[in-house]
Structure formats: C-alpha cells, structure tokens
C-alpha cells in the first residue's frame, strides 16, 4: 500500500501542470482518487464528514446488480441449451450453461465499460473536470438490459450515444434529465428495432456442428407471446419469478432483482418509496385490466396481477432504473406519484400498445421527463403553505 502510494506520488509530476502527460491529468486524477481517498481536509463549516461518498454509493449499487448479472449469465446458457434440446432440466449442466453465458455476456460488459469510460475520460480531459463515478453504474446497467444477441458494435454505439447525448451535453453526472442506460437502450430500440425486439434476439441459437433447434422452438419472450395472443407461451408464475425465461440479460429473474432491492433498501441508497409505489401502480393497473379483461375478451389483460409484476423487465426497472436519484422525483411526496405512474404506465403500455410488448423502458423515460414537473407542484404546495401562514398572521 505504501509502495503503491509511492508509485502514485512518483508518477504525479508527469501528469501535473507543465508535465509531459499534462493532458491526461484528469484520467490520472480519476485513477488516483479511485485508489486513495484524497488527503483533503475540510476547511470550515462541518469539520468532520460522513464516511459516505459517491464511490461508496456506486459500488453498493453495482454490488446490488451482481445477482442479476450472475443469474443472467446462467440463464443465457440455460435458454440456449433449451433451444437446442440439451440439458433441458434446470439442474443439469450448470457450469456449461454458466460458461456459455459468461462468454456471451462478458464481452458486452467490457464493450459497454470500455466505450463509455473512454468517452467520459475524453470529455473530462477536454473540459478539465474530474471524472465522476456515474458511469460505473451505467456501464453495468447497459449490458443487463440488452438482448444476448445484440452485436457488440451496437453496444458500443448505444453507450457512446448515451454518454454524449444523455449525459455530457447536460454537464455530466448529476445533471442528466433521463436515465442514461435507458437512453442507450431507447436509442438502439428505435434505431435498430429488429435487433432489440421480436423473437430472434432473446435466445442465442448459434449452433455447433451436429446441433439442431428443437421442434417448435420460439425465441419470443413471454410478453411477445402474450401480445400475439399465444397465452400458452407465457411462462408460469414461478418460472418467471426465478427467471427461467427469455429476455434481456439481467432482467428475467425477479428473485435476483429482489436481492438487489434488499441491498439498496437496507443501505438506504435506493428509495423504498419509489420501489413500493411502482409496485402499487403496476398492481393497480393490472387489477383494473383483470376486472375489465373478461368483458373485452382480451387474454393479455387477464394475466393475474402478481404474474404481470414478475414478467419481463418490470422488476428490474423498478429496482435499478426508476430509483436513479438523479432522474427521479426528489421530493418524498413526488416520489410516490412518480413511482405510481411508472408502474401504471408500464403495464398500460405493455398490455394495450401492440407496438411495444414491454412498457417499462418507455414508462420510466416518460416519467423521468415528468419528474421535475411533479417536484415543481410539490414544492409549490410547500410555498403556498408558507404564504398562507404569513397571510393568516398578518390578517
């Protein structure tokens, strides 16, 4: 550790003003502050400070996403082997499935981090400000919401778009309007719709010699089936809860998402208000559909409430994306409204809009944009209360 400190201190002059590698100063600074919390003492005000900083915050969020990532790797393999009819039982071929998935997923993670951080480093060096931690989480979120068959160049383009247009143009971490990872996904979704939706991309069906797809194989997700009226294709509730279904890499397992939610709520980093209100909003909308479904004759509407909530990206979105503190509502009452409407809209879009079999992404993006308006009205009511108090006293 002391040796490492010495190494950093020796390297420092080259990266400081007037040094040979002056241009890389902020990259160096980013790495140095990663290794060592700076010996920066307070000057006035609060002389002591909480041990919490943004690096700790982000590392907790990444930890919370690990169950989704690890399960996602296994599930990618599991879905692949199901498609070719090998190791069809859950317990069979654990390591084969996991390795297969890891080989598919890790390159996507590497590309996402590589491209995103590369652009971030470039921007920080040009604009001369410190590298902020925001992308550490975004870089992990992007792979988790991609289909496994997404080409790597597309991940690169999506990450680049998200970092530049989603974040840097607004001023960097903390300044963005919409969730950055969802910006990447939305961009790819609308730019290359065939690669981000449909029934060809969710399960990797690359065949080795001697392998064939099983009869009647369909790569569609449960929601793809439901949207086309094939209710038999929707996986049962418990399979969906554990995540044994096709879908984006990290989103399928409600169980893994709940582990993440527990970590975020336990540490106080994710807002339980938002998580709970998204569930309530989704359950409310699904409940209404259950009531009117039979009379309309729409089978999708009749999926039970609980089943709706564990399908697709609903849980993943509510745990990791709706709770993004920068783009969510910032007031406590605002969070309830914001979350409720996300849940409501997600189910509404999912069930009613034929063009989008999954509604979570659009619901969150839409409410990201609306969040400042919600906060505005919450804050206005606080202001009105204060004005009223003043008026009462002068009267």
């Amino acid at each position, binding site marked *: *550790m002391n040796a*490492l*400190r010495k190494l950093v201190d020796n390297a420092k002059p080259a990266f400081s003003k007037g040094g040979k590698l002056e241009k890389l100063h902020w990259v160096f600074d980013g790495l140095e502050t*990663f*290794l*060592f*919390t*700076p*010996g*920066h*003492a*307070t*000057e*006035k*005000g*609060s*002389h*002591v*400070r*909480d*041990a*919490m*900083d*943004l*690096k*700790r*915050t982000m*590392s*907790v969020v990444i930890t919370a996403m690990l169950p989704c990532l690890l399960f996602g790797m296994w599930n990618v393999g599991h879905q692949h082997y199901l498609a070719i009819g090998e190791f069809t039982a859950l317990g069979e071929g654990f390591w084969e499935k996991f390795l297969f998935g890891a080989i598919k997923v890790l390159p996507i993670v590497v590309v996402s981090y590589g491209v995103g951080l590369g652009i971030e480093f470039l921007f920080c060096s040009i604009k001369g400000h410190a590298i*902020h*931690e*925001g992308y550490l989480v975004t870089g992990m979120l992007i792979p988790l919401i991609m289909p496994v068959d997404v080409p790597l160049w597309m991940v690169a383009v999506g990450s680049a778009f998200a970092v530049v247009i989603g974040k840097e143009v607004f*001023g*960097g*971490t*903390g*300044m963005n309007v919409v969730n950055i990872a969802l910006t990447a996904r939305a961009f790819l979704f609308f730019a290359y719709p065939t690669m981000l939706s449909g029934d060809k991309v969710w399960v990797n069906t690359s065949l080795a010699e001697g392998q064939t797809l099983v009869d009647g194989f369909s790569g569609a997700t449960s929601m793809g089936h439901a949207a086309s009226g094939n209710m038999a294709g929707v996986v049962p509730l418990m399979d969906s809860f554990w995540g044994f279904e096709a879908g984006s890499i990290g989103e399928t397992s409600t169980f893994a998402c709940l582990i993440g939610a527990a970590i975020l709520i*336990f*540490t*106080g*980093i994710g*807002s339980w208000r938002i998580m709970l209100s998204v569930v309530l909003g989704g359950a409310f909308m699904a409940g209404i559909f259950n009531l009117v479904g039979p009379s309309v004759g729409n089978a999708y509407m009749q999926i039970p409430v609980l089943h709706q909530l564990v399908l697709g990206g609903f849980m993943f979105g509510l745990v990791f994306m709706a709770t993004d*503190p*920068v783009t*969510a*509502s*910032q*007031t*406590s009452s605002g969070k309830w409204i914001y979350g409720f409407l996300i849940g409501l809209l997600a189910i509404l879009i999912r069930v009613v809009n034929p063009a989008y079999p999954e509604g979570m992404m659009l619901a969150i993006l839409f409410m990201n944009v609306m969040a400042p308006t919600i*906060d505005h009205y919450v*804050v206005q009511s*606080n*202001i009105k*209360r*204060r*004005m009223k*108090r*003043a008026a009462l*006293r*002068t009267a």
Partner: protein
Amino acid sequence: MSKTIRIRKGLDIRLKGEAEKVVVQAPEPQVAVVKPTDFHGVVPKVVVKPGDEVKAGSPLFVDKYNERILFTSPVSGEVAEVVRGEKRRVLEVRVLADKQIRFEDHGAGDPAAMNRETIIQKLLRSGCWPFIRQRPFDLVADPAQEPKAIFVSAFDSAPLAPDMDLVVRNQGEDLQLGLAALSRLTKGRVHLNVSAQTTAREFLDAKGVQHNVFSGPHPAGNVGVQIHHIDPIDKGDVVWVVGAQDVIIIGRLFRTGHFDAERTVSLAGSAARNPKYVRVRVGAPIQDIAGEVGSGVRVVSGNALTGTNVGANGHLGFYDQQVTLLPEGDKPKFFLTDGWASPGLNHFSASHAYPTWLLPGRKYELDTNQNGEERAFVMSGQYEEVFPFDIYPVHLLKAILAGDIEQMEQLGLYEVAPEDFALCEFVCTSKINCQDIVRSGLDMLKKETT
C-alpha cells in the same frame, strides 16, 4: 409546563472525547482577543490604538454602519495590536491583560425597574449587545428594531456539546436577571427552550418566560429549529436569539454593572488529552483551555459541525462555549483498507452503507478528512432525514446557487441560519458545503431586501 415537542429528524454524531463533568477555573488570560470576524456583516471601525489603556467593558471597535453597537474588551490592560489581513481587513484586536482585572462601571440595577431604552443603552455601552442576534439573516441584532419574540435555547445538542445543566449551576440569579432584561425588549414572549432531560431548577424555575420542552436528536438544540416549531419566521418578522450562557453574562451586567464575560467551556474531542469543563473569559487563548496542543490536531472554537478552525495559538470565539480538538485528516486513505471500498468498521455514517450502523452505542474518532471529493447533487432525500424543517433543503440551496431571490424567499430562507444546514453538510454524499451556500444566500437576500 407545556407539552414536549419531539424532533424526529436529525442525527447525533457519536464522537469520542466527551468532557468529564469537572469544572476547572482557568487563570486570568494574559492576552485576550476580540475578532470582528466573529460578527458576520459587521464592518469594524477600531476606536483604540496600540498602547491605549482599556478596562473590561471599554470599547475596542464599533460597527461602522451602526455606531451604537460597541464591541468591548473582555479584560483590562493595554491594547497590544490591531491585526489586519488582506485589504487591511481587521482580523483581531489584541489586549495585553492586567494581572488584576479592572471593570468599567456601567451601573448595576434591576432591569424590571428600567425602561426598554435604558436597558438597550446599558447593553450597547457595556458590549453585551452583540450577544443578541437576530433571525432572519443570523446577524447581530439591530437595536432600532423590536423583535416579535426572543428565543433562548437552554440546551446544546451538537456533538460533544457542554451539558447546560452543569454550566448553569449556581448561576440562577444571573440567568433570571438576564431573562428579565430581555423580556423588557419585546412586547412578545421570551421563550426558554429546555431539553426534556433537563433537571436544572435554574431553567425549570425561571420566571417571566414561556417554557418550551424539546426532545430528539441534534439539531433539536438549535434555536432555529425551535423557532420553526414554536413560532416560525415569515417575511417581515424579526426575532432575536441569545445563548443561555450569554443571558447569564447579561444578568451579571445588571447585578454588578460589569461586562464580566466569563463562560463555562467544554474542552472535548478525541484529540483532547484531558477533556473537561473550564471557566474562562471570552477571547481567552486556547492554551488556557486546552494546554499545549500537539501537531496534527485541528483546534476548533465551537463544535465540530459549525465551529471555527482557530489553530493552537488561537482564541475562544465570542459566541463559543466549546473547544473541540480533532485529529487532522490530511493523509490519503487507501481504498481497500480505509477508503470507499473498505469494510469501514471505524467509519461513522448516517447512511447504512457501512456496517457500523448496526452498533448504535459505539463512539467514533472522526478526523477532518472530507472523505471523498465534491460532486454535483446526486442523492435525494438525504438532507431531509437530518433537517427538521418544513422546507425543501436541496431546492433552497439550488435557488441560492442560481441567485434567484424570489425563490429563496418563497422556499423559506428567512427561517434558517447556516448552522441549521450543518448536518446536511455532514451527511452529504456529494460533499457540498451547504453552510457556505446558505450564508451567501442570506447575504444576497439581505442586500436585496434592505
């Protein structure tokens, strides 16, 4: 007795080094210092020269924009030096003290028998006036105004703060005289806000005041929080606030006619070798309180959240009743053993991201490291947990940063002082200096509205 007002939001930072409940009398100081920088917004006009003889209670400087307000010497002796900083700004007026203190006689008398103007005159001439501060703006009160009420907080909830029950012992008479004087200054009430735990008869039996009882974590003892819960400040309101020990000094003025600015100060903090209580005069050298302080120690006059870094050769601030010694945190911390990725078994955090929140009774040795770099606002809802006001703190800070006067007014800036944001600053993940921002907002608002 009125019912207890429970403050639910807040945070008690459990620091090591609480003062032992022993009161030691410090020797008369050899040098005393009055610092114009203790009085925000006061532009000093120095009325003495080096070599002048002064008594305790003789003026050293006045407020240039309100020359009725005198700032007097806490000791008698010879003016040694007027220390100036950049742009000739006066930083300190130093007085070499006599062995035997001589007091200026401002005349004793029963405040109940005096009219408002006489009392104000006496407070102004003796140098007791600056103990009275006003809200909004957190400045020395303007004697030309009349407040709607006066608030005295009879307990201090800040980390390692002195136990006011101990401090007030045997000073009941002066406290009562001081409160009587204050009650002549307003047509409204004088509020004496006590802690639910207090057993001091001096506070509980005080007459002629409205008693209010508070419980809960810090900042329950902050007078701003108390005002907010009793009688909040609206635009156009003025209230005055006085520290409980300063009420006692004011009472002493009426009993003896002297500006006898002696306080019981707690010496605390993990770097304090012998934490205890010390009776000492305002402006006395820190050495009289803490003895010799080694290197690598931050000497704070005041508490760890709002105090001033005065250095080992500094002096006790005009309003401070605490000296906190903290280890300096100017060394880098390796991320795995001591930094952001460490298990953090020695780290205190209001968040639950470090496991130590599972150990509720444990005390911590915090250093002055900022523990991270400054960032834009990222987290939400964090300040609200430690900010017991019906105010949106982040929105208010953003209004100040944007320089939007109207928003600042509407969002409640009149109700707060920088110290009310101290805990927000402590817990902030993004390490934003909230107190500085609030102060600049108050300055802007003051400039705009007067």
